């Protein structure tokens, strides 16, 4: 590409002189003498696909990684794995991007300076011995758990702590109280008929999202959601209540009382209780109550009790796949007291998540941090050891339901001092052998020697290494209930993971930073979310800076009034305000974790808030309503929309022999998880434009997910790719034939021919065309780019191509009937269908005849190939 770049630069400079000869009919000859790779050992020249496993919050999701020339270029879900079911989310899709991040650590650092060669051995030597403290994230990996255990044995008096900013202590406590042992509830949304979510967000981002969303799509239970801050589940709810944190326990108790749940110590009343209780009672065993992160232990306990009382068949109890480990608070105490001399932090960043941790680390004589980049913890630690990317190293993990899977590397191991987590523990144990050997040893002990090799190969190929965890059948203990102290009214701080950055683990992913959040529409930053009523009372508008005070700590943050937010509840998204870890994440938004108490509570009363009078520019890509009404249609159950009525035309329609590609998007299935948008960005080398240009409205996302308001502050999400109109308005206005139709009805955009008049974007009624205001090629052109999609130079238009390169590849391989666009492939609820209209059996052709099917802006007569299926709601539009 560099050849191309220089070529174009040259043209840019001496355009005039070229113009003459060009007038006489010359274009630029292509570059010459580029290196062409002969095949290396074991490297296929064409695509190769590897099944492996990637973790989120310590729980694995099976993926298929497509590689070209030995480099991963795309991650897709592994249909055989319960954690992904063939779908993917924003975190899986963006995995290859960070492989080539320039800020990744390649060398060990001692007190911030490159360590002398071989000195790393001393580092490990220093860690071995009395009172070693090992801090890991939540571990589901059998191998890691085994090695940690062995490390603890090796050095007496050592302790294993688990640092999990996403953990929910209350739910663990409640499970203990209710069942006597640590248990986790696996909701079965396929079997459920009515689901009451008390602050629970099963459809929201998380390790189980893909599975739960698919199950919800297939079972379509009635969703009753009570929550303090809008969530994806609340957006899709059939009934939604915005409750102040103080109201949840009373509501739960009231419902339990209405249902006559036994063992209820204290009762309460709540207005909504009666109707909710009735709904649950009607559902009988199909009823399910889910208490979410941040609810007091009592609410969790009551949820267990109600489920038991109604003999709910829509859930399974399993022992948590990533349980175990000591808490962090005692460790921090000990560190402050100077009692800790050896500290090893494996791929965790407590210095960012816990306010006082960095300072405490200063008192640890010998601390080592293993991470992909020098983050806050890496800076505070005496040693920073470079961690291999998950796609580069061996490992294993369990999915949310306990299904094990093996992680095999799909990219070349960087070598040198870079180690995977497993290899690091091996080094700590001073063991020989590779990570692969360690993982094989683990499974050899599980499977035994008998035809181990066969099972190993099988597990690698399937991406699944065993069965889900068995369901425990435990009776509810009579003394399950323990009323907590009543939650005080008034302003409450409600900490929440950012939908894209979690607690900050993904702050380095530019794709995730830039993509507008599903509900807040914020990009490149966070804001303190307040209810419009609260904002009105305090006279605050979006972008006003406020000073937040909680437990003595203060913090400055911009506010964003958000419809559906509970009054007097201020939601503070985590994951921002990074002070280290690379240019992408550093200094974005505000550091909400600084206010969070040491016990990792999610909801804290007694928040003080005062306007500073300053303003902070928010990048909120909130859409204004369009001129045409109901571009996103809603119907009542059973309602039929009128069949397509194309506008009349002077010309006879153009024939499309062969295939006629089309897409159908089911608004009733879409949960707004943004997976399609990131999948599109990953597949099509869509550049990141950065905060400045995002604020200016120059984002390049080919596929945008629009958010429409619904009653009860719910939301309707509408993915908008190119419509590929058969009578595309963009084409007749282009002066140079740079956008034209092909013989299969694709609206093609020919980048090399485009001169950038932008008149096509002007004439696109769907506003799906994007313009390269700057040259982004250099940043996109990493080995992780998709070689099948050209990079776009400055000054040309680009847009969704229906993944035309995938169609061409499928044609070459003679499997046109299975061709799928990247967005359709990623969608966890299968809301996006793609196929051939000329084939009456194709899903798309059938969707077009669905009574819910409609075309956007049909009255313009553009004849879009992308059709929509209206959302279904009680009472319709």
């Amino acid at each position, binding site marked *: 590409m560099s050849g191309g770049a220089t070529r174009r630069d040259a043209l840019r400079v001496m355009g005039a002189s070229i113009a003459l000869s060009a007038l006489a009919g010359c*274009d630029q000859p292509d570059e010459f003498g580029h290196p*062409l790779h002969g095949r290396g050992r*074991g490297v296929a020249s064409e695509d190769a696909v590897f099944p492996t496993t990637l973790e989120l919050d310590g729980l694995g999701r099976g993926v298929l990684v497509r590689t070209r020339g030995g480099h991963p270029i795309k991650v897709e879900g592994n249909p055989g794995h319960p954690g992904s079911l063939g779908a993917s989310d924003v975190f899986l899709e963006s995995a290859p991007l960070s492989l080539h991040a320039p800020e990744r650590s390649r060398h060990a650092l001692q007190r911030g300076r490159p360590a002398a060669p071989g000195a790393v051995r001393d580092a490990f030597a220093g860690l071995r011995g009395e009172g070693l403290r090992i801090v890991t994230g939540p571990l589901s990996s059998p191998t890691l758990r085994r090695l940690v255990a062995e490390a603890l044995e090796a050095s007496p008096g050592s302790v294993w702590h688990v640092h999990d900013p996403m953990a929910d202590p209350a739910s663990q406590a409640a499970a203990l109280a209710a069942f006597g042992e640590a248990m986790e509830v696996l909701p079965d949304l396929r079997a459920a008929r009515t689901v009451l979510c008390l602050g629970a967000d099963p459809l929201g981002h998380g390790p189980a999202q893909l599975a739960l969303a698919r199950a919800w799509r297939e079972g379509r239970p009635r969703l009753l959601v009570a929550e303090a801050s809008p969530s994806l589940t609340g957006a899709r709810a059939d009934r939604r209540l915005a409750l102040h944190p103080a109201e949840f326990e009373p509501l739960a108790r009231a419902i339990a009382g209405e249902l006559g749940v036994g063992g209820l110590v204290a009762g309460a009343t709540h207005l909504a209780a009666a109707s909710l209780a009735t709904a649950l009672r009607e559902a009988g065993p199909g009823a399910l109550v889910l208490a979410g992160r941040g609810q007091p232990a009592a609410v969790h306990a009551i949820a267990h009790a109600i489920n038991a009382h109604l003999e709910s068949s829509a859930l399974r109890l399993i022992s948590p796949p990533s349980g175990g480990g000591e808490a962090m608070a005692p460790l921090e105490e000990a560190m402050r007291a100077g009692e800790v001399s050896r500290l090893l932090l494996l791929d965790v960043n407590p210095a960012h998540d816990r306010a006082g941790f960095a300072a405490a680390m200063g008192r640890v004589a010998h601390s080592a941090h293993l991470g992909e980049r020098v983050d806050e913890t890496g800076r505070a630690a005496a040693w920073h050891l470079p961690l291999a990317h998950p796609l580069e190293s061996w490992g294993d993990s369990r999915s949310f339901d306990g299904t094990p899977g093996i992680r095999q590397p799909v990219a070349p191991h960087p070598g040198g001092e870079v180690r995977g987590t497993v290899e690091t523990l091996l080094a700590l144990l001073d063991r020989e052998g590779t990570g692969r050997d360690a993982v094989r040893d683990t499974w050899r002990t599980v499977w035994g020697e008998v035809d181990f090799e066969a099972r190993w190969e099988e597990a690698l190929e399937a991406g699944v290494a065993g069965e889900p965890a068995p369901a425990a059948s435990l009776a509810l203990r009579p003394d399950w209930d323990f009323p907590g102290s009543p939650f005080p009214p008034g302003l409450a701080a409600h900490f929440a993971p950012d939908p894209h950055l979690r607690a900050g683990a993904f702050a380095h992913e530019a794709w995730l930073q830039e993509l507008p959040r599903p509900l807040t529409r914020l990009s490149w930053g966070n804001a303190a979310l307040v209810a419009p009523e609260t904002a009105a009372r305090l006279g605050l508008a979006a972008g006003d800076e406020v000073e937040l005070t909680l437990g003595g700590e203060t913090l400055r943050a911009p506010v964003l009034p958000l419809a559906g937010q509970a009054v007097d509840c201020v939601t503070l998204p985590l994951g921002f305000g990074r002070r280290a870890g690379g240019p992408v994440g550093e200094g974005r938004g505000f550091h909400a974790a600084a206010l969070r108490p040491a016990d990792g509570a999610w909801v804290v009363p007694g928040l003080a808030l005062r306007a500073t009078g300053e303003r902070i520019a928010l990048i909120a890509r909130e859409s204004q309503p369009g001129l045409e009404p109901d571009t996103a249609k809603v119907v009542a159950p059973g309602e039929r929309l009128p069949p397509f009525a194309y506008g009349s035309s002077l010309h006879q329609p153009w024939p499309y*022999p062969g*295939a006629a590609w089309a897409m159908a998007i089911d608004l009733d299935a879409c949960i707004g998880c943004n997976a399609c948008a990131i999948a599109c960005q990953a597949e099509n080398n869509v550049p990141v434009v950065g905060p400045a240009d995002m604020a200016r409205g120059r984002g390049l996302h080919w596929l945008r997910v629009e958010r429409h308001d619904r009653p009860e502050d719910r939301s309707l999400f509408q993915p908008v790719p190119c419509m590929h109109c058969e009578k595309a308005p963009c084409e007749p206005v282009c002066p140079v034939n740079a956008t034209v139709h092909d013989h299969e009805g694709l609206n093609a955009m020919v980048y090399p021919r485009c001169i950038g008049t932008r008149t096509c974007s002007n004439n696109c009624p769907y506003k799906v065309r994007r313009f390269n205001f700057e040259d982004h090629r250099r940043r996109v052109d990493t080995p992780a780019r998709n070689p099948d999609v*050209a990079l776009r130079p400055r000054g040309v238009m680009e847009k969704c191509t229906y993944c035309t390169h995938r169609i061409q590849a499928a044609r070459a391989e003679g499997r046109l009937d299975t061709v799928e666009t990247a967005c359709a492939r990623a969608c966890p609820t299968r809301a996006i269908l793609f196929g051939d209209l000329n084939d009456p059996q194709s899903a798309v052709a059938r969707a077009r005849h669905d009574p819910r099917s409609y075309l956007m802006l049909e009255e313009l007569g553009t004849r879009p190939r992308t059709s929509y299926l209206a959302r279904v709601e009680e009472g319709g539009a």
Partner: protein
Amino acid sequence: MAPIFTPRADARLRLVLVVAALLAVLALALGYAWARSGSTWAVGKPAEQPIPFSHAIHAGQLGLDCGFCHSDAARGAGAGMPAGELCLGCHQRVWNVTAQFAPIQAAVDAGLATQWASVHRLPDHVRFHHAAHLAAGVTCATCHGAVETMPRTVRAETLSMGWCLDCHRDPQTRGLTPVGLGAQPYVHAGIEVPPLTRCTVCHK
């Protein structure tokens, strides 16, 4: 008083006008020719290769089939370059001048790819599928010329888009049979439309 223009002035004026016109025409003609000349497209210009490989020997004298080394051509998009092992497989027995094969040996030892310089590299925005063209009946020589006569591999054709279109406009008359429904010509509004000239056929 004397007139301000002598009779000679008219002659000069005419001369200037005619010369200017000629120059304009000349410039356009030169530009037109330059854009189409082989040298502009690096036709016949060899590239710097890791080892002095000669198609004239392998494909010419030894008569090796193209697919022997470029094994992916028949089934893939890229023709594929031979792995170092393939080269050395033969050359350990015949003509094993170790000095000459040092670069390849090094690559093989490191398990890396041998870095050949591409002579027929197309721009980033072009998709070319070897198998599809072979299936349609295009021979290697159609695009690559008579490599069996080339001691140093050079480009035989300009590979400009216009050159591609020469075939794509009407492959049938050249005895080529493109495969696939989408490749059959069809008529709209009384005009036959050659489908292989659609942008998406060759462009990413």
